[in-house]
């Protein structure tokens, strides 16, 4: 085993101390989160190496990566914009927000800008309904959005006006 998983194993070993014995398989999701944080996506070698490290069936890791929406097998844009379009956000303008972002970035939901700067995704409820419409950029929530606040944020992220 070489590469990213090998490098992260010391961290995983620290996590293990708070788990009961025999819970090694439970580390799959936290470990995949950590791997994705480093690499930006889950690569083939990560799945193979994690399978070997945890001693679980490979199908378990494959299924986990496929099942949870936050995991990705391919690189995303530098800034991953996730717009909630569930009930409360739709009632406060999420559909217009998606159109606005699409127009500004020149991409549809599910796409990445050609310069690799932005990926736009629509997602279901992020538990931010009282401050709708909202979106996540990376890990951060941006709430009570308006065209002006979205444009200001995009400008800040790109370093220039779009």
């Amino acid at each position, binding site marked *: 085993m070489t590469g990213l998983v090998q490098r992260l194993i010391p961290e995983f070993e620290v996590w293990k101390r708070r788990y009961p014995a025999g819970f090694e398989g439970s580390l799959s999701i936290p470990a995949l989160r950590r791997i994705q944080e480093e690499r930006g996506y889950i690569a083939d070698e990560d799945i193979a190496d994690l399978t070997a490290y945890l001693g679980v069936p490979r199908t378990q890791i494959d299924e986990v990566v496929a099942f949870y929406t936050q995991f990705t097998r391919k690189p995303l844009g530098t800034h991953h914009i996730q717009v909630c379009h569930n009930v409360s956000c739709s*009632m406060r303008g999420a559909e217009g927000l998606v159109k606005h972002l699409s127009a500004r970035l020149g991409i549809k939901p599910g796409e990445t800008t050609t310069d690799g700067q932005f990926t736009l995704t629509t997602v279901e409820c992020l538990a931010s309904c009282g401050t709708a419409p909202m979106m996540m950029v990376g890990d951060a929530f941006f709430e009570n959005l308006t065209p002006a606040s979205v444009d200001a944020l995009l400008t800040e992220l790109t370093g220039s006006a779009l």
Partner: protein
Amino acid sequence: MSIVATELSGTKFFMNFPVTDTSHTLAEYRTRFGYQALEKALREMSPTDVTKEVAAAGLLGHGGAAFPAGRKWGVVKLGDGEPHYVCMNADEGEPGTFKDRWLMECVPHMALEGLIIGSYALQGRHAFIYIRGEFDLAYRRMAEAIEEAYAAGLLGENILGTGYSLDVVLYRGAGSYVCGEASAMLASLEGKKGWPRNRPPRLTVKGLYQKPTVVNNVETLVNVPVILRLGAVEFKKVGTPKSPGTQMISISGHIAKPGVYEVEYGYLWTKFIYEDCGGIQNGKALKCIIPGGVSTKILNASEIEGVTLDHNSAVAAGSQLGSGGMIAVAEGTCMVRLAQVIQRFYHHESCGQCTPCREGMGWMERILNRIVAGGGRPEDIDRLYQISQANDGTTICSLGDSAGYACSAIMDHYREEFEYYITNGRSMYDGNLTVEDPFASALVGVAS
């Protein structure tokens, strides 16, 4: 205890202090009786005493099903030679629900104290907090609280010198609505995809790694320190006889003052909507309410008249308080479009295990998409009802059961809107979902 009197007069157990940048810390939590209940439990009470007190207080689960917490704890047999686990369900994902997020961001130590006390009652050596993957601040606040607690001797070996030891794992999900269902959550905690499983055996008999496990919602656990501090008798003086205590309600949608509120059970629903929350946006009339997350059946404006916010009243009115995630809908909203948004959500989140949910939710969404696109057929309404009914009682988890309720309840109330849309190929309300759309005119001047 003067403490009790101050607290009870306001009937707020959680939202009773000014939230600041530091009010979530251990030092400040200690000024609000923080960890006094834990001290009391560990030094003065046996594990069984704790469970009895929680049962006597009549604490109901706050995750949506309102199952008595004390009874759930009571199922686990102490001294059976098995490890016992308590898992805090912090996977808040029911659309419209964001009260656990408030609790974790503002009173993370109170949640942790409840978890430690619960673990002591069940004699657990390890406990888990399963927090949804998208939470950022709530996750960091819980993580900080855990580390502060370890450093202060409130977690780890020999807590407060009492001989009781507990480790807590903060486990972050990775994006899955169904993992809020307890058995799916435990599958996820085992590092697998989150598929629910059939009961029996109950999770309190065979749960995490086949060991007895109690899964409690965040709001359920924050009530535990309150109960131990006040005592069951004082706790029961708040709320109604059958719904003791308070309910955290998160309200959103077309409401003038959206946000998180703590109400005493038995509070008048209309007073809450029209006075506390300022009524509907722009002074519009209320059309209907989604009472407790989109999985609970909608009630129209007249159906909440005279109804109080407690479990029995909500059920008598034809719905449930559920997760306390309330969504207010204004007059002039297109209910067909609203049903379409809800159905898209269920289709997206179906875990794919049970055929009625996996196939049915997509089928319902496709029918609604066709109606919205103007291609509705006369038989569509009956078909939607049939698919919805075919789901009820035929799926492993209760999320599957209720996945069709939202749409059928909307059709029960607003069938004429569906008929109009199908007959005319367009919405009775111009497809409108908003009262005020900040992005309505935003695209003027945007190059396409």
